[in-house]
């Protein structure tokens, strides 16, 4: 429970500071919040007791702690990357405190979500994670796109939670409990229960942006402020994937055939459609949105076998994905913040004036594409390996073909940055120390994680397989 409480504490402190600072001194919150969050992140790594409280409503074990820590790091990086943006847009909204508070609150929601042991906690966690974020998506009052994205997010999220809830209510009706442990015992081959399962699956799939529940993603990602986009695409998605695994293998494990078929089909659809849409995107945020949809499809390869090692591969992939995607978003954010340019054409000749950012971008994209020796390669490779070990060779083949397609559009960005030339490439951008640090952490993570095999082995020792 410490993670959640720490987050609440951080949120409250920031909120109080926000009350006490005047408009001119608002920007001082930024370093304080970042340092506070750093402290929180570090404390998160300290040893902690695991177990269940509230009668199994909330439980925590090594793997959830690992996940929470990874999410903390991710949010920390997001904070670093958003500092510059916050400072530059002071005129547009003057509540830095609110920004930090809302994100921290949402993160707390996700922590609850992944720790949940019953459907109530699951529901509360989901909503706590989503509703504040919808507000943040619409925070840029000056841009109509921001409000549009907010509307699209909150309404479709509401619909999806309605569907989820309906499923939960049916589960409750048929099993008489909302606790995961008890539900799993009573769950079986009952049509109503399967209906309920699919409703709940749809709700979670909505969060992960699995085809056909993904359509909101691109619009929201494009409309939202970049730091929120990266939050949505990384942290929110990672936690949803995590809880999906819990649901599939701790609660609904009695229907392996239906589960696997659904996973198979949605995985193929997600990868393919995400890639096909990504090919033509010009807006970098939209581009990364579709690319992250496709990435989610790959994750299902690890989930589908239901093995322990597959789950470990999923967590490992998510960890890497945090760094890779945040690296890419960080660069996009820095450029967008400094110049307002978000189109791929604008990136032509970026390397000329901004070599370091281009390199970070290249590393991140390679990692997303799964090119060695950066970490993404290992993440994808292990997902594929765990699927192959269960005999899903055709699925692996489809996935790898999709990797090739994805490589095409990642290369388009690299081509823009390194190969294309234009008369007025983006001027040299002087990033502040936070952005630099954020990008450096991402780059270091991308480069290093793959080489330390013990990280994976550690994750593997903590995870669980299908029951």
């Amino acid at each position, binding site marked *: 429970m410490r993670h959640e409480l720490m987050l609440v504490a951080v949120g409250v402190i920031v909120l109080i500071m926000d009350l006490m600072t005047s408009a001119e001194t608002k920007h001082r919150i930024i370093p304080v919040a970042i340092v506070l969050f750093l402290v929180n992140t570090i404390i998160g790594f300290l040893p902690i007791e695991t177990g269940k409280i509230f009668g199994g409503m909330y439980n925590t074990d090594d793997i959830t702690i690992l996940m929470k820590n990874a999410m903390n790091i991710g949010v920390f990086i997001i904070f670093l990357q958003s500092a510059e943006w916050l400072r530059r847009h002071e005129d547009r909204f003057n509540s830095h405190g609110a920004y930090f508070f809302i994100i921290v609150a949402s993160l707390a929601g996700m922590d609850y979500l992944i720790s949940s042991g019953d*459907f*109530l906690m699951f*529901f*509360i966690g989901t*909503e706590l994670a989503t*509703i*504040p974020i*919808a*507000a943040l998506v*619409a925070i840029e*009052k000056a*841009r*109509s*796109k921001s*409000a*549009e*994205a*907010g*509307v*699209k997010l*909150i*309404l479709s999220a*509401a*619909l999806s*939670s*309605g*569907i989820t*809830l*309906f499923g*939960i*209510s*049916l589960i*409750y*009706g048929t099993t*008489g*409990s*909302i606790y995961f442990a008890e539900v799993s015992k009573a769950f079986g081959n009952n049509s109503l229960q399967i209906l309920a399962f699919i409703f709940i699956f749809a709700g979670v799939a909505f969060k992960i942006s699995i085809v056909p529940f993904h359509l909101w993603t*691109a*619009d929201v990602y*494009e*409309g939202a402020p970049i730091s929120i986009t990266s939050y949505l695409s990384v942290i929110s998605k990672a936690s949803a994937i995590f809880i999906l695994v819990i649901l599939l293998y701790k609660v609904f494990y009695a229907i392996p055939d239906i589960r696997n078929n659904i996973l198979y089909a949605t995985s193929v659809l997600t990868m393919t459609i995400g890639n096909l849409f990504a090919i*033509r995107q010009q807006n970098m945020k*939209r581009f990364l949105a579709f690319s992250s949809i496709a990435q989610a499809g790959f994750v299902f390869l690890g989930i589908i076998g239901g093995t322990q090692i597959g789950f470990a591969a999923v967590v490992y992939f998510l960890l890497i994905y945090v760094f890779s995607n945040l690296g890419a978003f960080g660069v996009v954010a820095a450029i967008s913040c400094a110049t307002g340019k978000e189109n791929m054409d604008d990136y032509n000749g970026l390397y000329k004036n901004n070599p370091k950012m281009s390199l970070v971008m290249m590393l991140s994209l390679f990692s997303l594409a799964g090119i060695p020796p950066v970490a993404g390669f290992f993440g994808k490779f292990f997902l594929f390996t765990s699927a192959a070990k269960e005999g899903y060779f055709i699925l692996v083949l489809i996935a790898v073909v999709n990797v090739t397609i994805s490589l095409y559009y990642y290369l388009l960005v690299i081509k823009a940055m390194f190969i294309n030339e234009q008369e007025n490439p983006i001027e040299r951008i002087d990033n502040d120390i936070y952005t630099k640090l954020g990008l450096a952490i991402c780059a270091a993570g991308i480069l290093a994680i793959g080489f330390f095999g013990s990280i994976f082995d550690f994750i593997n020792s903590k995870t669980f397989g299908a029951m």
Partner: protein
Amino acid sequence: MIDKIGIEQFMILSTLMFFIGVYGFLVRKNLITMLMSVELILNAVNINFVAFNKFYYPQNLQGHFFAMFVIAIAATEVAVAIAIIISLYRKIRTIDVEEVDEMKY
């Protein structure tokens, strides 16, 4: 008469409400009305919870509590949603959902 009302009737009602809600969400063009449709869905869920609790599992209160949480969270959801819709209305001067398509493809 009224004590003859069994679980079936509640189920039929809640299912109807759920699908009316979904239908409303899909066809009504006003953002506020769509929000109301969502409320219908959530209330269908509430009926389910309460009815199941009452008829099948009277020994515990999980259903009732769940319904209360749903009500509370629905309220927050509506609050945030309305705020965003107002913000949107300030920018584009309409709350017709078909006009909200600046971003596409």
